[in-house]
């Protein structure tokens, strides 16, 4: 009976190495969790910035599209060409009709 008692106390105690390993694992898990959480928040900021940038670029595209259409507006082009460059529409007698007989017909 006297010999069995120390064996009982041995069983309840965790070895010092195991405890250290457990603490390291817990630390690693907590560290990973925290760093991933921080990374997620960073990604959130980055994503938000990209969304804003995307919207700004889309806005710019729309404005450029509108500007392009405004600049290509035939009314404006005609005005520029006739008033600034002094061009005139050709008169019917100035047309010379040349027919491609090989590929004649509507195209």
């Amino acid at each position, binding site marked *: 009976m006297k010999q069995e008692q120390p064996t009982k106390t041995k069983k309840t105690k965790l070895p010092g190495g195991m405890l250290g390993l457990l603490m390291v694992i817990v630390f690693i898990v907590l560290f990973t969790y925290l760093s991933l959480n921080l990374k997620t928040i960073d990604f959130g900021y980055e994503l938000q910035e990209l969304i804003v940038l995307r919207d700004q670029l889309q*806005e710019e595209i729309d*404005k450029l599209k509108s500007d392009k*259409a405004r600049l*290509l*507006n035939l009314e404006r082009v005609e005005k520029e060409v006739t008033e600034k460059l002094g061009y005139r529409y050709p008169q019917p007698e100035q047309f010379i009709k040349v*027919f491609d007989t090989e590929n*004649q017909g*509507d195209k």
Partner: protein
Amino acid sequence: MKLNSGERRRTFLIFIFFCLWVLLIGASLVKIQVFEYGKNLAKVQAQSNRTFTLHSKRGTIYDSSGEVLAISVKAKSAFLNNKDKADSLRIFNRILRQNIYLSRDDKQNIKKRIHQGDKFIWIKRKLSDAEYRRLKKTASVDQDRMQSGLDFIEEYTRMYPQNATACHILGGVGIDEQGLGGIEYSLDDILRGKNCKVKVVRDARQKAFKLQYLEKPQDGKDIYLTIDSSLQFFVEKELEAAVKKHNAKSGTVIVMDSRDGAILAMAGFPNFNPIDLKYTSPGVIKNKAISFLYHPGSTFKIILAATALEQNLCSPQQPFFCYNGVYKIKDQVLTDEKPYDYLTFEEIIIYSSNIGAARIGELLGRKKYYEGINRFGFGTQTGLLLPAEERGIVNPLDKWSGVSLDFLAYGYEIAVTPIQMVRAFNVIANDGCMIQPYIAKAIAGVVLKRAQPQKILSPGTVVRMKAIMEEVVKRGTGKTTRIEGIPVAGKTGTTKKISKNKSTMYYISSFGGFFPANRPRVTMFIVIDEPKGQFYGGDVAAPLFKSIAERLSIYLKIFPEVDKTNEIKL
């Protein structure tokens, strides 16, 4: 180390204080985290979460070649945060010095609202870039010393980069981008999209780091029209010149692809810039191509002739007595511009004899003619996806008087729209098939389904009608539309306007036709309302048809038939 009693007491007191401090912190945490949990959570959410409405972008309208006709871009709108009336008035006076256009009513209204103490007052919505720059400067002056302030929010604004081009088709939108006319109105549900709610989570520095869509965002869908903006532009230009030349009240031109019914151009004059829609009178905004009701006059003889030939009641060479220019039926007298004794069926159309047409009508009979009119789609809408399209007026048979048949034979006692006329003329151009005209080609990249063509004329009738209509241009009333090398088929029309059952001194000149007559590519219909001086369709509308057709043939590469003797071989 042994402690004396004084030291022990002090140590004990420190320990007690420490325990109390820990207890206090613990109690506070319990109070914050347990008892006031809901209240504090709401506080945090109010500070970090913002929910706002994200306005959807209205869809863009393109022409058939992808040119932008209408697009929404972001613009700033200025408002006054009216916390102090004196400050607000000072700011408003500064704004007025910045050369920002505001109407007299707007100015008075803003001042009135400042005095009333309204907290939020619009100064001007959808500013131009220059206006925004000027106002931004004003907003920054004395900003810290004033309670009231000028602020800005972003809104979408509709731009029409082609100005007045295709204005009657596009219509326009209101201040909140709601469709008010044209395709902007009829396809508003598709163009508008759906606003959505967005939750933004911010950190302590109010920097957003999470975006959560509470509703699915849905921007408006883009629409592709069949019209070609270049073609539309020069059709409008030619129409404007013609309306001004003849000092007419208004005019309309419809250019349609004969093969599939696509509207290539639909012009109206007077026109307007869609941005100025709210300052434009309803008469100008009205798209006359689809909502102008008028008596078609002699252009309607085409319907009569096609129906008569389809019924095999007569041949093109059959003669009809035309009563030498004066024909009495019941208490009415029909007259011709020139007196004719006998004219063949085709000559009646070529020289546009009213009496001859009445005689053909009498031969055809009421029922058959009425059926023919209905077969050509008169009295029904074309379903063009444009708002306010008129059905026209076709009286039912039981309401026809004793002279209705004769009048209907040359285009009176019926009201039609130009779009119905172009659809009817295209039946002959398109080998007897009636196709519904269409103006919207695709929505969000998906090509729209079109109605099936309906065969209403036999090939024999079509060949005869084409030949007659070609003769109208070669030697009849439509001589002014002749184009060298390109066969044109058409019919002129001149209608005396009728007001309160009495004829007036005003006329409507029209011309409908297609070219090249042997293989039609383009069907066109022109109506000029109340030209002064010359008023015959052949003098007013037909030359316009010619000038548009000449430019169109170059643009669409419709080459003249080759005269081999003067050919330059490539």
